């Protein structure tokens, strides 16, 4: 992982002026690097499971299995629908009269796909890994940041004390969690391509936009719930750690509720953006690189631009939009938090629409 990030640097300086801030920043980056490394390692391990030729114990091979297939019911809805046509009749006769099976009413649709996507999401380990990391780092790093500030409060200069923002300090860990949620957003789509499951999925549900909508809905809700829980827990824990005489905030403090709820929304939308990227790119490594590149590398490139255009461009970057959401001070020349979130939504919608069009056009 890259040693510094524009966003974290800006945030770090803003939140904690002085060398405690720098130490904390290094710590945060190291933890983030370990987290992403762990996720990728776990992912690679699960992909490389060796083949195991354990014999299948319960083989059913002697009796004419197919006859049983016909007898067995399908679901309560279509039970007692079909019987095997002929046991020993002559073949040409059967060919003339194929058994017509009654289908359930209507058509497969979004309700089944939502259930299916939920099953997919909760039956792979990478989900638990990434969400676990999100919660652990989101809350953990925030706790470290606030505890660190409190520990050095008495030796902090009055100027820095006055400029201290307890809200953004307690939410700093949320920005580490965004990488984990982003990785999950990528895996939700690229995992299907990497394993070939996408063909089974699209054979079961050939209306591809509907499949994407179901994925977006299920992942979006899960990401939002987890991100909001992390944001609120990180905030409350952080404020509890900022005991007197350090200044602390409550949800009633100006801008606090927006910062906390907004950072959860920010992470969710960012995750959907990464899902869109993965739909376009289809490869796990490529999509994660693109996502991390946009969050960490792009700000560095923009920083190298002449300062006259740097500010104009910088405020459109996702990391700045996020930093602005949790900060109570506002960076020079940035959009207001909600306008920023709206722009981020635009990115996510654009990525998902382009991905959706490609999904429909391309061979699976």
């Amino acid at each position: 992982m890259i040693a510094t990030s524009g966003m974290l640097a800006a945030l770090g300086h803003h939140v904690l002026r002085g060398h405690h801030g720098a130490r904390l920043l290094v710590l945060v980056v190291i933890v983030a690097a370990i987290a992403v490394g762990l996720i990728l390692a776990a992912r690679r391990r699960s992909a490389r499971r060796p083949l195991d030729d354990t014999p299948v114990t319960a083989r059913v091979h002697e009796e004419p299995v197919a006859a049983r297939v016909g007898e067995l019911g399908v679901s309560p809805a279509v039970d007692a629908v079909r019987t095997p046509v002929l046991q020993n009749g002559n073949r040409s006769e059967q060919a003339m009269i194929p058994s017509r099976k009654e289908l359930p009413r209507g058509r497969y649709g979004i309700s089944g796909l939502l259930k299916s996507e939920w099953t997919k999401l909760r039956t792979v380990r990478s989900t638990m890994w990434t969400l676990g990391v999100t919660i652990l780092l989101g809350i953990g790093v925030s706790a470290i940041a606030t505890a660190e500030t409190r520990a050095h409060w008495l030796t902090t200069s009055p100027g820095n004390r006055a400029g201290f923002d307890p809200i953004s300090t307690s939410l700093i860990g949320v920005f580490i969690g965004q990488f984990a949620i982003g990785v999950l957003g990528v895996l939700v789509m690229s995992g299907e391509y990497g394993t070939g499951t996408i063909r089974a999925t699209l054979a079961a549900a050939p209306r591809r936009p509907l499949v994407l909508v179901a994925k977006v809905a299920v992942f979006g809700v899960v990401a939002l719930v987890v991100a909001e829980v992390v944001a609120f827990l990180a905030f409350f824990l952080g404020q509890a750690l900022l005991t007197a005489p350090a200044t602390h905030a409550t949800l009633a403090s100006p801008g606090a509720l927006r910062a906390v709820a907004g950072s959860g929304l920010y992470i969710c939308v960012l995750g959907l953006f990464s899902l869109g990227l993965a739909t376009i790119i289809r490869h796990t490594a490529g999509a994660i690189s693109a996502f991390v590149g946009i969050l960490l590398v792009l700000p560095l490139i923009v920083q190298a631009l002449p300062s006259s255009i740097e500010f104009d461009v910088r405020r459109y970057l996702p990391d700045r939009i996020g930093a602005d959401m949790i900060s109570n001070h506002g960076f020079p020349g940035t959009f207001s938090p909600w306008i920023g979130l709206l722009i981020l939504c635009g990115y996510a919608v654009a990525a998902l629409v382009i991905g959706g069009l490609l999904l429909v056009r391309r061979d699976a």
Partner: protein
Amino acid sequence: MIAARGLTKHYGSKIAVAQLSFDVRPGVVTGFLGPNGSGKSTTMRMIMGLDAPNAGDVTVNGKHYHDLPWPLHEVGALLEAKAIHPGRSARAHLRMLAETNHLSLRRVDEVLEIVGLASVARQRAGKFSLGMGQRLGMAAALLGDPEVLLFDEPVNGLDPDGIRWVRNLLKGLAREGRTVFVSSHLMSEMALTADEVVIIGKGRLIAQIPTDELIAQSSQRFVRVRSPEIQKLKTALEDKGATTVLEEDGSLSVRGADEIAVGELAASIPVVLHELAPQSASLEEAFMELTEDSIEYHGAPTTGLFAPTGGGA
């Protein structure tokens, strides 16, 4: 019922499938034969709506796959073994498929039982052998109890026991009046399983004929005759227009006359016969003959490698 009409698919300048038309009828096992790279899998993917044809059309039960109201209830397919998330259990994999088409969890357990994976249903699929992966693919195909079934190379990676199981399964499904379309590059396997074969080479249709007719039509069909007076018989046969070859073991291979004609001719001369045996080529040979010109990837001829180097031209 599967109907392909003028199906064409190219990837860039490479033509995978060209002007392919065929019908797969219900009630019989239809084999889909072709050498590797001849376009079998591409055709299967087009039937399933996964790849879009550049030209032509394919329908399942009169509908495009995309328009099927309940795809899994109507078509079941095993397209590739192990197209499963390695971290997901067999049961979870089937469950997520079942849910899309409102199939019950009970049905998931039933198909796991049918394919013999019930005992490992909760193990991660990444641990499965290729054969177990094939069985899971079979389970997915059977999930919706569909009328139309497609299997792409289903016996790959199976042990003899598993192969026999698949063979019986396919025949049983066809006997129930279902449409069964199964691809293979193993002619010997199709000879035992398929009632009819669709043969393609380089993406083009070579033949669609009943399996026994394919063997019968083959020019490899001949009659082997042994006789103490073989030269006399040879001359008489050639006078009647048959072609004969005197083999090294002393037998005579006769083409252009069946065993009845040869036997009657021998009696009329008369010539004593020690053997009169009709020989039919294996499906393998018939197939090789048909696809001779359409093999995409030839192995390098091996004779040169081991031939003595001295005394060359």
